[in-house]
């Protein structure tokens, strides 16, 4: 057992830092750092910079544009990006649908979609959940009926994140009602400009509109856009879930958030001193820092197993639950840190950077309560934490 970073990994980390210092646009990092929402252009601009460096798709095979990094190097890269305030790479294309296309797609699909994903030419969204199918996803009812060389798709997808920007949607549709629910599901790639698609924003409790309803009304999708076989979509979707599990823990993002929390607690007055010296707050800060250390320790173990080519151990199952608990705990403390200035609702202060008025209260405050409310989603999406526990009870504990 050897628990310090190797010389090779230290050198790699220094390379990543140098690249970020040199290439990460200051205005984007500053926006992200002060809690401004990033625009589609901000994300695409950053992803194209990564592409030019050859670092857009660290998890891909080298011949398709990957980096050949070890699992540890990918982790170091994610962490350095987060600490530098780089935008999160939007995962729907590069880390979600791309591995499925690589594993189960036709050569034509690979040739068409993978280079466009790598260059961020297409923005992808995920069409899984439906109004009647949340945790029980296999009950989904959006129907695809074969008509010659096309499927005709009708139904509704919901909670579709950033669908308003999307060029493509990967989706699960029902092609059969007989047999087991799971066996009648097919995986389709749908062009969002197809006639019959309507995207309707859903305003969430934080006042933002990043999720959407996507209505499909007799949308014609070429059969060539089907992944693999008809009726095998559930298998492909499960394959997707098994990919890049360690990144779901978001250790780097949470480290950056903890740093921000400490800075704010150090600036907020409390009694004769600042909040960071308040014994009660200090203990809660210490507790979440320990939780984050424990999470990171487990991530490192899982990364080691991945690098050594071992199957993920039981620890990997906990990364989503603990990772989201830590993220939510940090946003909760951020809200508490600013006290009454959590309340003023000034979305202009963090939604656009051309707002010229002074915010009421400290400039870091307006974004915090929306952040807290927004992050309640984390324990619900990607298989709710309760579903994760069902899976662990069955697969790890054998109950």
């Amino acid at each position: 057992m050897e628990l310090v970073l190797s010389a090779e990994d230290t050198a790699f980390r220094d390379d990543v830092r140098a690249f970020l210092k040199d290439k990460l646009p200051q205005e984007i990092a500053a926006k992200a750092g002060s809690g401004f929402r990033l625009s589609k252009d901000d994300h695409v601009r950053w992803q194209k910079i990564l592409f030019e460096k050859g670092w857009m798709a660290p998890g891909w095979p080298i011949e398709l544009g990957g980096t050949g990094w070890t699992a540890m190097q990918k982790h170091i890269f994610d962490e350095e990006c987060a600490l530098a305030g780089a935008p999160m790479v939007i995962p729907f294309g590069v880390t979600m649908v791309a591995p499925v296309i690589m594993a189960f797609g036709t050569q034509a699909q690979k040739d068409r979609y993978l280079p466009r994903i790598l260059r961020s030419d297409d923005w992808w969204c995920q069409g899984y959940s439906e109004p009647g199918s949340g945790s029980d996803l296999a009950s989904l009812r959006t129907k695809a009926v074969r008509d010659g060389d096309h499927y005709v798709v009708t139904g509704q997808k919901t909670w579709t994140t950033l669908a308003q920007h999307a060029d493509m949607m990967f989706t699960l549709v029902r092609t059969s009602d007989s047999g087991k629910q799971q066996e009648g599901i097919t995986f389709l790639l749908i062009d969002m400009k197809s006639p019959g698609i309507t995207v309707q924003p859903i305003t969430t409790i934080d006042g933002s509109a990043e999720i959407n309803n996507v209505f499909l009304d007799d949308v014609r999708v070429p059969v060539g856009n089907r992944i693999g076989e008809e009726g095998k979509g559930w298998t492909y979707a499960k394959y997707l879930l098994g990919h890049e599990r360690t990144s779901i823990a978001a250790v780097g993002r949470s480290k950056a958030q903890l740093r921000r929390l400490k800075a704010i607690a150090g600036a907020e007055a409390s009694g004769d001193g600042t909040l960071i010296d308040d014994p009660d707050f200090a203990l809660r800060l210490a507790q979440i820092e320990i939780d984050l250390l424990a999470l990171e320790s487990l991530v490192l173990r899982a990364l080691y197993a991945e690098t050594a080519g071992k199957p993920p151990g039981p620890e990997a199952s906990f990364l989503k639950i603990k990772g989201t608990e830590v993220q939510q705990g940090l946003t909760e403390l951020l809200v508490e840190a600013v006290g009454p200035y959590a309340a003023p609702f000034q979305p202009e202060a963090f939604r656009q950077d051309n707002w010229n008025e002074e915010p009421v209260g400290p400039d870091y405050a307006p974004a915090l309560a929306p952040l807290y409310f927004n992050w309640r989603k984390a324990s619900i999406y990607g298989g709710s934490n309760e579903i994760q526990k069902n899976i662990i009870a069955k697969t790890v504990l054998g109950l």
Partner: protein
Amino acid sequence: MSFAFTDDQQLLADSAARFLTDKYGFDARRTVMTAEDGWSREMWRSFADMGWLALPLPENYGGLGGSTVDLAILMEDFGRHLVVEPYLATVVLGAETIARAGSDDQKAEILPQVAEGKLTLAFAHGEPAGRFDLARIAAAAARQDGGWVLSGHKAVVHHAQTADRLIVSARTSGQTADRDGITLFLVDPQAPGVALRPYPTIDGLRAADVILDGAVVPDSDVLGEVDAALPVIEQVVDRALVALSAEAVGAMDATIALTGEYLKTRQQFGRPLAAFQVLQHRMVEMLAAKEFARALCYRAAGAMDDTTGVERARAAAALKSETGRAGKRIGQDAIQLHGGMGMTDDMAVGHYFKRMTMIDVQFGNAAYHLRRFAGLS
């Protein structure tokens, strides 16, 4: 960076698991617990034969020079089998203190005997009013020709009654909570002026309160520098926190396994308890608590050997805090999931619960180490 055990570490883990599974069953332990000493000298000789007593000791003095990770591997298995022998007192605390602070003569005299299983030690540091603060020492040592006269009260000294030597801390200068002014002494428990009040502990071990009243210690039995023992004590205790946490993790592991088996066997409402989702989720939370404590444990073990000062202290404090929280939660839930059966002394689960609970109060509980961690941030 690597989280894999080396071949030697895997061998240690395998041989410990094999030996203890074979020789250290629940019933054998109960017999030993109730015998006069509260532990088995025959078992202790076997530990010596296995090389476990020599494991973390320096190679110059009959040891194997093992790392803290090696120690954690062994302690995890001790926890899984609820070992009652004085390993922590003798090897992890006692011998380690001598290895760090002792003179060449002291090390040469004592450490090889520890490795061979011929001599046991006890660590008489904590005091009734000290709680968990390692610097809060009121016991006093007064200078006398060629030596020192000790007086004071040492609280809950594990395995003192059977120890051949006590390692006693006492104040040679300064006020009760000062960092400077603490000195370590090797004390013969049979010497005049040393009185022991022995008792069993609720988790199946033995301990004693030690009353020092005019005990005379020659200069040759001063351990390390006069007035400057605290940094040594802190290093030794931080390493012991890792060892104790590893023991707790082993106990958590066994507790979860026992509880899982029970849920699969016990039938109510026409189906096994394991089929109830509310119980499944509780088990998953117990498992998560153990996995996180274990991950922190081996990381902290690495930090003990690789880092010094604040980094080492932070790693130990984070770990012990998490261990305390996890142990309490897993223990309480395991009893609850066992229902009435969990309350009976005949079931092993209660014994694990008691050990995990008492590990929390050894060298600082979860709340203490959380505060300590906050102070180090």
